[in-house]
């Protein structure tokens, strides 16, 4: 399955990666090499096989464990300070991003 330049550009956009024209070309070539490796999967007949999403379900039922509805992290200005200490842009408790137009 050949991946062309427009696929590559589309994927880069979806993934929010900024590729220069050279980088995009390289990415396209690499993706094609990778997909040659992955292509082997298509040849396998997996009719009737259920995808395995949670490995332990091979031997027992894996069910989602629920937690009780309780506030365990009340939050505060001090806690906010700790949690936001790595923010590249902040103002009065808000994270800042370049203006978003809706």
């Amino acid at each position, binding site marked *: 399955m050949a991946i062309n330049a427009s696929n590559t550009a*589309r994927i880069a*956009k*979806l993934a*929010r990666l900024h590729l220069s024209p050279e980088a995009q070309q390289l990415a396209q070539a690499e993706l094609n090499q990778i997909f040659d490796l992955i292509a082997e999967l298509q040849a396998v007949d997996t009719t009737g096989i259920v995808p395995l*999403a*949670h490995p332990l*379900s091979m031997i027992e*039922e*894996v*069910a*989602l*464990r*629920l*937690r*009780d*509805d*309780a*506030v*365990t*992290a*009340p*939050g*505060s*200005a001090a*806690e*906010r300070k700790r*949690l*936001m200490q790595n923010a*590249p*842009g902040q*103002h*009065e*408790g*808000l*994270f*800042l*991003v*370049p*203006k*978003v*137009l*809706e």
Partner: protein
Amino acid sequence: MNWEVVIGLEAHVQLSTASKIFSGSPTLFGSAPNTQANAVDMALPGSLPVLNRGAVERAIQFGLAIGADVSPRSIFARKNYFYPDLPKNYQISQFEIPVVLGGSLSFSVDGQPTTINLTRAHLEEDAGKSLHDNFPGPHGEASTGIDLNRSGTPLLEIVSEPEMRSAAQAVAYARALHNLVVWLGICDGNMQEGSFRIDANVSVRPLGQKEFGTRTETKNVNSFRFLERAILFEVQRQIEVIEDGGKVIQETRLYDSDRDETRSMRSKEDAHDYRYFPDPDLPPLIISPEWVAEVQANMPELPQQLSERFAQTYGLTEVDTLQICHNRETAAYFEVVVSKLPTNQGKLAANWLNGEVLAALNRDNLDIDVCPVKAEQLAALLNRIVDNTLSNKIAREVFAAMWVGESGGEPDSIIEAKGLKQINDSGAIDTMVDGVLAAHPAIVEEYRAGKQKAFNSLVGQVMKVAQGKANPQQVNEALKRRLDC
């Protein structure tokens, strides 16, 4: 060209849990920015989601209330897209296998009973909020502020089949859905605060055409009035586009209430490729039949059932029960009142609740759960009408006094204090009647001459003498006896 309108609604309902769907942060409204967001809500490296049982329970309740199937096994999936109010840049939602499937909602549109089928309802997390004021960024640039307090609030997304055919129908459906989720207690229904938001999928097609036209989605409408306006505008717009020879573009739109129009949203997500896949951090949600049975056993009676029961037991009309069953508190109030009255007095209770009580609550801007006149007290008052101690008219006086707490708010004390006991003694009434007849010969003449109105005048005069306290029926009878002999 005759056009048919096709509408499907998606409601995003914030569930009334104490904590968020995947974290232990609180879900209160209006806190200072980012003081209700922990490491999980902020998607810090190494954080993981853990599902809140309360959110699932509310989904089960909803499913049961609409007669839907509650999935014994449902899967959480990641909906991947980049947006600043979505901290992980994916939303944990449910895709192929949601927690609730099917179901239906019945309601009235202009008196016409209608049933709309639902496609599904699923659990997902809410996003944070973007504040578009011009905050100063790191290089001084105009910036948007992101508040993640709302991020992670549990949502139940409820999807209807595209079965609505008018804005009025859509609004009626939305109102009925709103009533139901508030009734069940799974959502506070506060649309101002964003607890209940509607997306309207609207399309038009020539009448008789089988295929659906291209639809647009108008998002995040937070009032019923705006919903109606948005749908009407959108229908008109689409018809105009088509009639001008153009094609309706499938897109997301926003309703602008200032201009009363919908407009296209700048694309929030490129290419709509959400790359859904089951979230590897969350194993399948298993809901056992035992859990469903437990939730079913604890469900409140639904408005529909309650209405029917009241109608049957107390001989009430739909109009009566509509008001009473508007919310659980009013219905509960009613039940307490009727439980203390003779069985055939349901109508009396209904009239008073829908009349005096609701009027007073509205006037004083109170909810029924803080009503100054408790249900037991109202019942005591109504019993005094039943046993002829009071006429309806005087009872209203007593009620007004109860409302402001005179004499401790107890009807009997007020009756005593104000001397409002109805005069039922025939002797006393005869004496008053004789007195009035003697004092107003002219009116008597008019009555004898055939003027029925004169009779009412005489009744009024007797009542005046009795200070309103004479038993009206007896006054009537006594007068008739004297006059018609």
